[in-house]
């Protein structure tokens, strides 16, 4: 899928981390530690992992014993027995690792659930609050990103717990075998850690910068490919190529900057693992001569360093550095979708209106502080039971007016009243049940036709569905689908017009007293449109139609024209005389044939 892409400025040079991106670790820590359940699982995971490191802890010691008292002492059986004991600890380690899967799986599945719940909840609420479909490509990536979090988190938890304990066990075993070596090993490990902290910090900064660049590359490339026809037609291929080339080069440079720090980090770790080994070799003659070390102990110590510490250190930094950072970044990004925005309109509880007359008084609305108002001190009264059609040039703000009428958008000045009560003070749930707005884009969800029809009237029985279907004259369509219990699949299975029929029947069945059709019949043919509008006009309550065809205006009791932010309402014939703009609109509509 291409994404809908917001254009961004082209800037030279590498981009800095955006100020609003939170520190990557914080969300991850909160996700893992906030729930007591998670803390328990982490503790169990740690316990099993500690047990899993026992073989590493014993490895050098057992090699030493097997050599000194077994193979080198000429007692092969004893040597074999010790190695057999080592094999047993390896099996114990494998068993512990197996058990560590249980708390890990519980934790990972729970985190994934929590992420999906949070992000679906958050982005759906945010989209509803804004009233506009977000870039569905970006939002739908949420599910794949949650999945990526699941995989990364499981890998991170397993490798981190295993390697951290293994490194600790190697150091502990080494100290147990040869405490003298601690004098060298511990300072080296400590100074490595001291070096790794600033290095990792720099790595993270650069990595995040490169991620930002990667997003920018995807965004700009998508925009360019989406606009290919226009770029070619505008004779702007060189311009577009230059724009994009800058972004691509910046991206490559930002990735190379990450690699440099990675290389340094690899060097530091190699040092930490290898300096103690060199020190061991250098001090070996003295230790052996002084009787501090036996042959087996020297080999055991080397075993700790070569097969214990080095691989563990390497894996540890790899997992914290790469997995952890990618994970932290992903979780922060998902967290951005997870927040539930405060409801845009104050949700006063309780109040319902005594009547259903709609009144707009001095309503002003504009999109931005400097833009021309869509509504400017507009007045309009729609008494209960009225049937009006709203017309106006395209782009004048008819849909905005519909939102204002339904109480979905708050005007910046003036009042909208329902039954004499200001919409802002009405109970939200009651208002949503009482006023139904049917937008152009029909929402039909995967489920049965019955579920879709009864969406707003869950207690509607088949007889009631039948009556609505008859009233709207869509019986043939319903039968064609296979009846009420036919499954209507997701998008694509139905045509736009068919989807509109379903949403119209749904609202017809709803308890709404005021119905606003915002070009809700634009994909059905004129005859069906007339039948549907007439059915709604006969239905109890008020009908407001935003006209897609001029014929809608001829059917209405009154016509309202929106022009220059003002509203003018009258019967069709009167408005034709009074409003030149309306006459013009009707004339052109007819002229168009």
């Amino acid at each position, binding site marked *: *899928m291409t994404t809908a892409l917001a254009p961004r400025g082209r800037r030279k040079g590498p981009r800095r981390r955006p100020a609003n991106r939170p520190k990557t670790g914080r969300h991850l820590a909160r996700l893992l530690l906030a729930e007591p359940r998670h803390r328990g699982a982490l503790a169990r995971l740690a316990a099993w992992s500690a047990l899993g490191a026992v073989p590493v802890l014993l490895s050098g010691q057992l090699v030493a014993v097997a050599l000194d008292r077994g193979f080198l002492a000429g007692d092969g059986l004893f040597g074999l027995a010790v190695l057999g004991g080592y094999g047993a600890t390896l099996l114990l380690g494998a068993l512990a690792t197996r058990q560590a899967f249980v708390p890990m799986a519980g934790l990972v599945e729970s985190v994934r659930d929590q992420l999906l719940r949070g992000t679906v909840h958050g982005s*759906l609420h945010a989209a509803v609050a804004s009233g506009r479909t977000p870039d569905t490509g970006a939002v739908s990536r949420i599910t794949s990103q949650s999945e990526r979090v699941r995989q990364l988190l499981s890998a991170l938890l397993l490798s981190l717990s295993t390697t951290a304990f293994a490194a600790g066990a190697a150091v502990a075993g080494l100290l147990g075998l040869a405490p003298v070596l601690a004098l060298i090993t511990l300072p080296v490990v400590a100074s490595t850690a001291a070096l790794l902290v600033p290095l990792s910090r720099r790595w993270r900064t650069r990595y995040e910068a490169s991620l930002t660049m990667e997003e920018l590359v995807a965004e700009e490339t998508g925009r360019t490919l989406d606009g290919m*026809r*226009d770029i070619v037609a505008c*004779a702007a291929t060189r311009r577009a190529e230059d724009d994009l080339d800058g972004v691509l080069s910046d991206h490559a440079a930002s990735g190379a900057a990450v690699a440099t720090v990675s290389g340094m980090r690899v060097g530091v770790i190699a040092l930490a693992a290898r300096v103690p080994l060199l020190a061991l070799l250098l001090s070996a003659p003295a230790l052996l001569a002084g009787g501090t070390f036996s042959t087996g102990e020297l080999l055991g110590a080397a075993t700790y360093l070569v097969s214990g510490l080095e691989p563990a250190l390497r894996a540890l930094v790899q997992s914290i550095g790469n997995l952890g950072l990618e994970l932290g970044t992903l979780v922060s990004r998902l967290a951005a979708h997870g927040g539930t925005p405060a409801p845009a309109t104050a949700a006063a509880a309780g109040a319902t209106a005594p009547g259903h007359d709609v009144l707009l008084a001095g309503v002003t609305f504009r999109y931005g502080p400097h833009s021309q108002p869509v509504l400017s001190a507009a007045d309009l009264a729609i008494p209960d039971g009225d049937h009006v059609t709203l017309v106006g*040039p395209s782009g004048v703000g008819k849909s905005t007016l519909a939102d204002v009428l339904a109480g979905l958008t708050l005007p910046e000045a003036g009042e909208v009243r329902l039954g004499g009560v200001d919409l802002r003070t009405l109970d939200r749930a009651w208002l949503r049940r009482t006023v139904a707005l049917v937008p152009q*884009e029909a929402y039909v969800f995967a489920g049965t036709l019955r579920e879709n029809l009864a969406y707003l009237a869950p207690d509607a029985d088949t007889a009631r569905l039948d009556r609505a279907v008859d009233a709207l004259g869509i019986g043939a369509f319903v039968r064609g689908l296979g009846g009420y219990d036919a499954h209507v699949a997701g998008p694509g299975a139905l045509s736009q017009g068919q989807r509109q029929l379903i949403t119209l029947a749904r609202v017809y069945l709803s308890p709404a007293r005021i119905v606003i059709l915002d070009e809700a019949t634009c994909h059905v043919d004129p005859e069906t449109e007339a039948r549907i509008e007439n059915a709604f006009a006969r239905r109890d309550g008020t009908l407001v139609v935003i006209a897609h*065809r001029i014929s809608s205006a001829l059917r209405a009791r009154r016509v309202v024209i929106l022009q220059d932010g003002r509203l003018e309402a009258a019967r069709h014939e009167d408005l034709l005389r009074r409003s030149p703009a309306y006459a013009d609109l009707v004339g052109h509509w007819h002229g*168009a044939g």
Partner: protein
Amino acid sequence: MTRAPGALRASGGHGAALALVGLADPVARLALPAVLAGAVDAALADRLDAAALTPVVIVLVLATACEIGREILETRSRLRAALVLRRRMLRHLFALGLTGQRRWETGDLLSRTLEATSGAATTAPVLVGLCASLATSLGGLVALFVIDPRLGLLFLVGAPVMWWLLRWLLTRVRRATTDYQRLLELLSTRFVDALRGVRTIRASGTTGREVERVLAPLPRLRASGHEFWAAQRRAGWQTGLVMPVIQVVVLAVAGHGVMTGRVTPGELLAVQSYLGRAMGLLSQTAALARLARARASTERVRDVLAAPPPPAGDRTLPAGPGSLSLRGVHVSRAGRPVLTGIDMDVPGGATVAIVGASGAGKTTLTEVAGGLVPPDAGTVLLDGVPLGALRRDELRRAVAYAFEHPRFLGRTVRDALAYADEPPDGLQRIDAALRDSAAAGIVARMPRGLRTRLNRLRLSGGELQRLGLARAAWRDARLVVLDDATSSTDTATEAEINAALDRAMAGVTRLIVAHRAATAARADLVAWIDAGTLRALAPHERLLDDPAYRAAFRAPAAPSPGAAHGAPAAAGTGRTR
């Protein structure tokens, strides 16, 4: 088009350096246990001197240098190759123009341009890594044989068992993921559906219910996830059983060797390392899979690079009125003919309305006439010169387009309107173009006028169309194509625009795809397209007697006032957030 150079070569100097490191790395990794063993044995014999220690230091330094170099060069060569491939891809896509867009979906092209290039770019690192680790593993095995042939034989017996076990477990785990993926997909589909219906959900006040509907598959997803982990756990456990057995047996044989003097104590240490290296043979399948993925990505890139761009020559246009001729033009798409045998002559400066039912081929005709798409057969001539013989930039300067759904690029509104390789100097021409397109008012309503950032815009379909017209109107084109470019404006505004464009584009040849009879009536000629053929080229009044012609206007309902709200198609054109 030369043969698309391989992904390997694209990694350039970094790739060559990486190959060098790839040669040195196995040497260092294999030498390290040997020199360590030597040093340990020397220490045990109390003759640890510089001669025994120097090789250790050298090999340690070499190994560390190889590790650092590999870490840096792998990334750098991958990035370099990706950059080279992406540049090549984009240049080719720009040359292909609409031809490329016809052949591949935009989403597919995006994934080929970004993901496939970066997949192909891993060829060099993956290949080097594969060779290096193969050499290391085989070297480790050889070392085991050299130290004690029994050790090597033992490994050869144990490894196939291990390999077979790993494969068997992998298929079982893979099976457990399929079900999980399906449920995740279901949840994702519901989520996107709900997001598309957000206006309805908002108006119905049912957000809470929708959240629950989207999340309904979650319990099943969780159950399936737990099944997956259980399979993984079994897999890990069973391999966990085999590894220690091999390890302990090898150690026991080596220990026995120490006892009998066949193996030195230092070699016992080396055996542990070499066993680890040799075990690397088992993970080669993963590297082979990565290589296969890189090759598949390379194919996806090559596919696009191999597509021939539309023909272009080096001729320039003579001075002329913009007369347009189509000779035997034939276009088919996906094997189905869209235009067949179109012959038509449009005198310079004439306005031609293109009329026909939806799907008749009107848009394709405008694309061919303006050289956006070459005809599959036949020729298009502009002032006597075949479009395919023209220099590409010359052709693009000569023809301007305005579309039903224009897409805008650039930073600000001004930048988007002046978007071209050769933008106009100053603002006068853009201001005039805005007035001629009845779009000056739209810009005046924007928060910062022409300096408004594109991503700050909230515009209706009709408003976008008028800006699209303005973007075409300032150009010095001799042919202007308006493809349904005013369909979302109301009829009054359209009339205003037409009058202004008549003044501004006097003498310019115009092709106008029209759905309204009024537009056809105002044109000098009407090109009536019916099922891919030119049914007539004549004035509107002459055609009016034909009932089939009149029917062409009645089919679709009048203005479709467009994507005023949240239509996904408009999202990329500047209406965001």
